[in-house]
């Protein structure tokens, strides 16, 4: 009886782990960095400077397919995202969440690492940013009670760190309102990205802590597009971008072989 019970438990837990997007090693890796997250010259400085490139991409993307419920000229100038509900998946210490919050969006940041969320919460509190909130949640847990709630779901530099990537996309899609925007920025799995992201950034130039990325987990653009298609999302825009470690600067480039930023919208059911 007891033996049977334990078999059931172990089977159950295997099932759970199969259905989870969480990679424990990855969470530990990022939790260790918690104290360095907000140092703009620290180990995560590239993520800070990436905001210059990605925030306008998200902001313009959201506004080009959806209209804010808050409509007035003043908002469109100073708070272009006022009235939009945005989910930042894998928010870390809230580097992107705060930027989106300053543009007026009501932002929820989720991250499975308690340490990261604590840093994020304290930082937003100190600078009086009231429209940004954080939760220690995995996407599959969060999705259970927040389905079709968000105007935009953003997973920026996250999907390459999760397990069960297709499930991850499915959950992202379920969280979106019909017509809502899904944004993903990530690394492509090509020879070029291996040479630049792993060899160049982590080993030669040491601009990213070693072991931050696992090349095998990168998703090619084709794989990504097929995931999106299966999950009711229509591709709207893909752009390639790259990092200049000497200037700590990101630029849009023509090829999507290294990194790509992608915008899809959830199909409205008829």
């Amino acid at each position, binding site marked *: 009886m007891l033996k049977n019970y334990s078999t059931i438990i172990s089977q159950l837990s295997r099932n759970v782990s199969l259905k989870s997007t969480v990679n424990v090693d990855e969470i530990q890796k990022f939790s260790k960095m918690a104290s360095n997250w*907000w140092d*703009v*010259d620290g180990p995560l400085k590239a993520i*800070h*400077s990436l*905001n*210059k490139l990605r*925030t*306008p991409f998200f*902001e313009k993307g959201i506004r080009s397919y959806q209209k804010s419920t808050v409509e007035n000229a*003043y908002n469109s*100038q*100073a*708070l272009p995202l006022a009235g939009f509900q945005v989910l930042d998946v894998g928010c870390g210490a809230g580097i992107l969440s*705060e*930027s*989106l*919050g*300053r*543009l007026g969006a009501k932002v929820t940041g989720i991250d499975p690492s308690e340490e990261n969320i604590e840093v994020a919460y304290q*930082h937003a509190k*100190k*600078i009086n940013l009231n429209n940004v909130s954080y939760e220690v949640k995995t996407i599959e847990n969060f999705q259970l009670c927040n389905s079709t709630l968000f105007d935009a779901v953003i997973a920026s530099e996250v999907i390459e760190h999760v397990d069960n990537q297709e499930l991850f996309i499915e959950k992202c899609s379920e969280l979106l309102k019909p017509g809502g925007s899904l944004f993903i920025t990530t690394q492509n799995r090509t020879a070029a990205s291996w040479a630049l992201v792993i060899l160049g950034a982590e080993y030669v130039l040491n601009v990213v802590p070693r072991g931050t990325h696992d090349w095998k987990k990168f998703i090619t653009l084709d794989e990504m597009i097929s995931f999106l298609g299966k999950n009711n999302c229509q591709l709207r825009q893909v752009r390639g971008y790259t990092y200049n470690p000497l200037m700590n600067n990101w630029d849009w480039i023509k090829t999507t072989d290294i990194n790509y930023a992608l915008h899809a919208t959830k199909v409205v059911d008829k």
Partner: protein
Amino acid sequence: MYFVEMKRFSLLSKYACWRSNYSTASRSDHYDIIISGGGMVGFAMACCLGKSDCLASKKILLLESSSQKQLTLASYNARVSALNHGSKSLLESLGVWQHIEKTRFASIKKMQVWDACSDAAITFWKNRFKLPQNDDELVQVTLEDGSCLTTDLIIGADGYNSGLRQNMKSQYISFDYNQMAVVATLRISECAENITAWQRFLPTGPIALLPLNNELSSLVWSTDKITAKCLLDLPPDIFCDRVNQALWNNEFRNLGVHNVSERIFQMLKIFRINSTEENANDTRQLPPSVVEIQGRQAAFPLSFGHSVDYISNKAVLIGDAAHRIHPLAGQGVNLGFGDVVALNDVICEAVNNGADHGSYLYLKQYQSNRQLHNLPVMATVHGLHFLYSTTWAPIVMLRSTGLNVFDSLSSVKSLITKKASI
């Protein structure tokens, strides 16, 4: 080139008060941006930020320790500023230029050699700053009366003695030229159209006449400290004689050098390097002579200074607070206005990208842009000063022939002039 009298900028202050999001008097404790120093550059900064739509919801404060000055047009002030086209377009975009045009300005059409003085007023800044170590803390400003303000970004436009710079503990490279600039407003004779800026390089330093209107010109005479003190004490008529002497006499002329440079000039003519359409303009005009002085002459010391860092966490320097140059090329305030435009751009970019408007990442962008622009200008001006302050024949010959050749290559010249006015 345009010349504007310094007092013109009190217009700016009136303009600034019109805007509702402006506050120069109220004392609530937190401001998004505080500008310390209400000179030309500080006020231009305030107007520029105030006019930016993306900052419409921000509270901006300008602090100035001296009381508001009244604008009087009765007489010309001895201190004038030379503005290049970049500065002019900034003032146009701020809606200030039309006021300047209505009141008083003179344009210079003929020469690129000019001179003006940078803001020399010594500001005794009594406010104290406490700069934060971390990005989630605020800058604290304690005013003279003990009240305390906080801000996300402090902009130091408080002149070359900048209190903020001293607080930033930025390394400041400076030296004294051991020179003073003697300034005065002079009445000149026999001039149908007074549109040429005159500058003559004497071994003791450059002397320059800048047109104010058809009869009046402004004098900026850079010279060693002893001569300057003598000039200051001279009665009006003798002072005018000395100015004329400095403009006209040939006692410093080196005959050998003169011959060589004349030959090269002839040679250039033979090779027709001079473009034909500009030949008419190339004939040299004689400098005007000075009839009398209006008011009294004044003087201020000249020095060079450059702050190694323009920025620190939530603090940034603009204008003379960051860099100070010899006025011989009249670039001082133009560099400052250039800083204003560049800083406004990065602040707006930061806000549009959802970053904090005092974000170090964006301030760094301002610093590298401006140092890339300012340092070559400063080095050139300093180099010119060195080149023209010697009487050693080979160098005199070099600069004399150099000027002639440079003058002939009109395409090169216009390229450089264009560059200088950006």
